[in-house]
């Protein structure tokens, strides 16, 4: 038998490594009807690692919508160049990648990470660099006391807003007694607390909340502690798919509400028949018929998503909340660059001062589901929240919580300098 030599193994390894080389700092400029220097937007995205399921959608959305922007006049007539970097879902890598965008790529604006620890460590750096950071984190702390910075805006929703908006509707339709099964991490605890407040404000009550420790190998012992007499179960856990399967197979037939933006973490169709009666809280519906929006149809077309919300190339159900976050962040940049007369990065302070005077972003191509309001005090956007429900294997619109119902008190006032 032929002996495998060290050289062969090394050559094989080198070949495998070479085969895996695909560009990660992807830069895209497609300019039709645009002129001048490109406006450079950095995208700090979870392309790999534990949060890559949601990063997949942010990457698809940013890439597709920048192409769409360039095909439709760019921003202020200038082409847009997108530079995407991978955070690996890791704080140190994410921060290094942000510094790469700021220092080496010299980007004009950044669409930030979704993972709160990366976002919180990054927004300070972006602020020092005087670069506008459009955070994608859904932790309300990102725009709260001690973390909010002038050079950061959030054009997606957060835990506080989704709980405030959704709890009222779900208490009315499902019942007053609730149980919570939450991931024992900052996000899960935050969702638990805001849900409890929302349910209490709606006249309901949350009984015992069951904590799922991080990295717990088996969910069943924790699921078995959930109150069986509750009308509904609220679930902010990262492995929601497994949690629902175990709940159903353990005889829990209550209505289940997943925490905000959970349908971007997994494809709801993987639940099969167990998915029936599962609710979600998102910033956009999945099927196009539920939005009745020509602008949303245009976005789906640009991203290769069919009318049922299925991404044609990958076969996955669209993570619409991620897509909306990116669309609205790009929409914010476009609107404020054009209205404030922004030309170069030194103009960003003036752009922010202008943005703080803009209360409403009217429905349009990058705000496809209606007006979005931005609170100047903490730079937080509020939008209608879509309450979705899985029935007969498809997810559809159950109700809409108006943006006004999602507003919670601001902890800071950045307008005071």
């Amino acid at each position, binding site marked *: 038998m032929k002996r495998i030599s060290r050289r062969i193994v090394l050559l094989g390894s080198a070949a495998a490594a070479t085969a895996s080389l695909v560009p*990660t700092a992807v830069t895209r400029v497609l300019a039709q009807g645009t002129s001048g220097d490109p406006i450079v937007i950095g995208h700090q995205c979870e392309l790999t690692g534990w949060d890559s399921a949601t990063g997949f959608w942010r990457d698809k959305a940013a890439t597709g919508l920048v192409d769409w922007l360039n095909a439709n006049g760019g921003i202020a007539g200038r082409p847009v160049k997108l530079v995407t970097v991978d955070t690996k879902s890791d*704080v140190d890598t994410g*921060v290094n990648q942000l510094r790469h965008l700021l220092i080496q790529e010299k980007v004009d604006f950044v669409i930030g990470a979704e993972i709160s*620890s990366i976002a919180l460590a990054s927004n*300070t750096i972006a602020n020092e660099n005087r670069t506008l950071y459009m955070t994608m984190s859904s932790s309300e702390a990102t725009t709260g006391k001690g973390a909010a910075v002038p050079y950061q805006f959030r054009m997606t929703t957060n835990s506080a807003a989704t709980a405030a908006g959704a709890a009222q509707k779900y208490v009315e339709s499902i019942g007053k007694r609730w149980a919570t099964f939450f991931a024992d991490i900052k996000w899960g605890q935050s969702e638990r607390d805001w849900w409890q407040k929302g349910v209490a404000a709606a006249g309901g009550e949350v009984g015992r909340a069951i904590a799922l420790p*991080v*990295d717990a190998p088996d969910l069943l012992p924790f699921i078995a502690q959930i109150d069986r007499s509750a009308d509904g179960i609220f679930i902010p856990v990262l492995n929601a798919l497994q949690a629902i399967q175990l709940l159903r197979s353990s005889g829990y037939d209550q209505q289940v509400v997943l925490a905000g933006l959970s349908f971007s973490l997994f494809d709801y169709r993987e639940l099969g028949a167990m998915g029936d009666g599962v609710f979600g809280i998102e910033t956009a519906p999945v099927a196009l018929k539920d939005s009745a929006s020509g602008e949303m149809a245009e976005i789906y077309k640009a991203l290769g998503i069919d009318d049922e919300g299925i991404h044609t190339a990958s076969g996955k159900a669209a993570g619409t909340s991620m897509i909306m976050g990116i669309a609205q962040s790009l929409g914010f940049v476009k609107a404020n660059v054009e209205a404030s007369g922004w030309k170069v990065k030194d103009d960003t302070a003036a752009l922010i001062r202008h943005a703080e005077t803009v209360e409403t972003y009217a429905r349009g191509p990058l705000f496809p589901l209606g007006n979005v309001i931005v609170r100047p005090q903490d730079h937080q956007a509020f939008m209608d929240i879509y309450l979705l429900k899985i029935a007969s294997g498809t997810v559809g619109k159950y109700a809409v919580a108006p943006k006004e119902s999602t507003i919670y008190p601001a902890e800071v006032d950045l307008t005071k300098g």
Partner: protein
Amino acid sequence: MRDRVGIVTALGVLTVLCAIAPLVGEFWSGVLARCVSWMFLAISFSLAYSYANIPSVAQATVFGAGAYAAVWATSLVGGNMILIMTAGAAAGALIALVFGALLLKMSHSGAAIGTIISAVTFSMLGNAAVAYTGGTDGLPMPAQAFHLLGMPFAVGPNIGMLLLGSAVLAALLVAFWLFSGTRTWRVVRAVQQNAMRAQVLGYNAAGYRLAVFAVSGCVAGLGGALYALISRHVAIEVVSLSMSLKSILWAAVGGVTSIYGGPIGVLAVQLASELLLRWTVRVDLIIGLMLIAVALWMPRGVMGLRRPRSSQQSQ
């Protein structure tokens, strides 16, 4: 017993890092500064594994304790960097003392499993104790007027922190090199090679191992404090099991039996990762292949290359 080649190599590496920092620019200076803080972690693993005979998979827990202690200390003592680094080192030593006292009651493999359980447990506790750790969101380093020996000092991923970290690490390595020529160190080596024989000869083997493990914790905690000052934000990820595994990889690449190998291992792995990230999202695959190659053909890491295997075996 003193390893002249090792100390010269390690100091040479640190000198080169500091010399090239002004040339490579702000971004790479920050990357190198962070690497220097991780060198403490790699060295702490080598100390624990090769000299205390404790295969610790929880060194990142100790490193993280130092990082959090630095953040908490900053709130209490302000921007005095000496006090902040002392707090980190003390926290690391204390945690290692507690860990070590428990681990020494276990067998070699039992201790390895014990450290894994400790790492996971501390990660879970850190995630749950959001009020103290910030959980997954983490804690920012409080804004302070930082100063070192009365001089204002800018913390963050910058050349200043790279120079400071390198200076502290160089002092530590020189101190270790000097100490490695003493009689006490010969006893440490004797205990490491055969604890029972050393015990029969009248030495307190457990005491020596515990002391070395506490020193490894002190080194990790000091590195954690520097990491906090460089990153200015500490999240619970820093105490994770995967961070501990990184420290093992760094030490393995540099040479786990030599504390001088840690800096080389960190640089080799992290700089390769940083460069590969510009080209591919499959960095971990390539680093994994690199580590397999190291395990197959450089089992003693980079530091093991300097002498023929026969002489290494006799060490």
